[in-house]
């Protein structure tokens, strides 16, 4: 009898294997569940700043990819590496920098949200670059979110135009070719407004004449309301609905039931000693 077989015959080995399996499931689940990456951003209205300072910051932090004249760069094969920034507007710059997406670390299917890095942890520097880009070709400025959003209207608009990608409670979801719609856990109202206005990365544009500022404020109010809601079960399980809830209920619930069944039907210790 090998040592492993001997170990397996111990009375508690079955429980140990079961527990290990349950823990493995837990670890795997934790690996797949969306991690929250925190980033604080301060949405402030772009003002006409010292353009020279903005240009300097641009040349130091952005020009290596977007080009010295913000014209964008292409690879040798003609594929776009970084888009032109002429005409994207201050709203786009503010969104990309305050969510930490820019300056990007690398090219890829999608630039992820991350903590804001220096020098853009200072909102004045963000405003300066935004004003510089705005001066190159106009485009939407940093918006002010109007008061008085209607949560019910926002929910309706969210479900018809946003939920397909970002999930009905803003948890995000997968797209094609490695792209994804990010979650809205930490996105500020101004950032949500800017995203709708400028359509960052693969996201479509919802301009102010299609979805009015009141519509946008309503969508933002809906997201803030949903985000503030408690999870009745204690844990939201990613808030993606019955799939994850069912998975946990089946795996953990059935695991516990199996443990109980093993205990109920296990041979009694007394008899083990005799044999």
């Amino acid at each position, binding site marked *: 009898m090998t040592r492993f077989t001997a170990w397996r015959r111990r009375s508690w080995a079955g429980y140990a294997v079961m527990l290990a399996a349950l823990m493995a499931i837990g670890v795997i689940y934790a690996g797949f569940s969306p991690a929250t990456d925190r980033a604080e951003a301060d949405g402030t209205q772009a003002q006409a700043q010292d353009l020279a300072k903005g240009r300097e910051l641009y040349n130091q932090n952005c020009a290596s990819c977007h080009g010295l004249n913000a014209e964008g760069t292409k690879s040798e094969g003609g594929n776009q590496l970084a888009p032109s920034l002429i005409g994207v507007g201050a709203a786009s710059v503010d969104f990309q920098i305050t969510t930490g997406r820019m300056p990007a670390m690398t090219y890829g299917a999608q630039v992820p949200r991350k903590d804001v890095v220096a020098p853009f942890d200072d909102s004045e520097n963000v405003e300066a670059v935004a004003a510089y880009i705005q001066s190159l070709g106009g485009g939407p400025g940093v918006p002010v979110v109007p008061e008085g959003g209607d949560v019910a209207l926002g929910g309706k608009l969210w479900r018809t135009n946003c939920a397909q990608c970002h999930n009905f409670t803003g948890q995000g979801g997968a797209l*094609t070719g490695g792209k994804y719609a990010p979650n809205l856990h930490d996105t500020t109202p101004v950032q949500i407004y800017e995203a709708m206005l400028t359509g960052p990365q*693969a996201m479509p544009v919802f301009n102010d*004449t299609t979805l009015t500022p009141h519509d946008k404020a309503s969508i933002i109010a809906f997201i803030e309301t949903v985000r503030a809601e408690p999870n*009745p079960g*204690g844990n939201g399980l990613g808030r993606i609905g019955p799939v994850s809830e069912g998975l946990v209920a089946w795996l953990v619930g059935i695991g516990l039931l199996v443990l109980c069944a093993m205990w109920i039907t296990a041979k009694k210790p007394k008899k083990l000693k005799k044999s």
Partner: protein
Amino acid sequence: MSDETNETTGAGPERVIGTPPPVKSGALLASGGGDTEEYKPGAELDERKAKKDERIVALFFLLAFAASVGFMVYFIGWSGRNGGMHGLERTRESNFWLGGLMALSFLAMGVGVTLWMRRLMTSVPIEQARYDMATDEETRSSLAADIKQGALDSGLGKRPLLRRTLLLAAAPLGLAPLFLLRDLGPLPEKRLRHTYWAKAVAKAKEAGKPGVRLIVDSGPEASAPLKAADFNTPGGMITVLPEGIYDLGHDALTQIAKASTILINIEPDKIKPVKGQENWTVNGIIAYSKICTHVGCPAALYEQTTHHILCPCHQSTFDATDGAKVIFGPAARPLPQLPLAVDEEGYLIATGDFPEPIGPSYWERG
């Protein structure tokens, strides 16, 4: 076992077909090895240890009792106050206490019973007598003889008139389920072939207008028609409906489920027009049915960088620049395109219904 069976059928009381033969000894439990030593429950237990185990089991039962009482007290005293549940915050609290106490009650009872079984009941192997499943030859042949005699007696073979009229009497009962199927409801007929866009366009043309306006779907009150000049940003996308669809009242939701359309703004030079549908776009504004042609999910995950429309259910991918041609996934047909134009006031209008039925295939579509 069979010898025992034979013995009992020979000497025992008269048996009913299908019941097991009576057992000789009258006891269900036989102690191991088949000897006739009398079984004494709990003989192998150490009485002092058994007393302790007894108290442990009783403790679990008391815990179960306390949890059940706690459940009732919480339900009446706290959860029921102010007439019931109030808000998600309260749901969380009542879920915790009601669910937790009930789980504790059942769990403690189960643990108690299991401990009782494991610690206080016998661990002597029990042999339970089982018998052959098949009845013995004698019973079977007697049954066969009975059936044969009955058939002969009824004269089924001798009196064909009776046999045939009986079959005739039973035949309509066999056909009855067909009538039940028919009563499940009328066939969908042509209702799947057209959406509300057809009716709305027809109504508008009756009123002398070139087509029906597109409204941004914001519910019955806030939905407003959309101007081409307002939907002017390339990369834009919005869900639209035919104007007037919310006036349908009760039927509105059913019609919206079929008439939902996504409006996309693509740079005009990127669009490859479909033959015969060249003038269906307005300055790069193009409209497709939102209902996936695979199984009818809302396909509206639009990527403005690749111009792909993606269905979230099974990843069918459509190319918005190429007549919503399927480029990936299980969908068999492109998303139907809606013919667009602009009226004299600059509003976007639809000049007709989708050229083919929207959504998944169905029986009559072929």
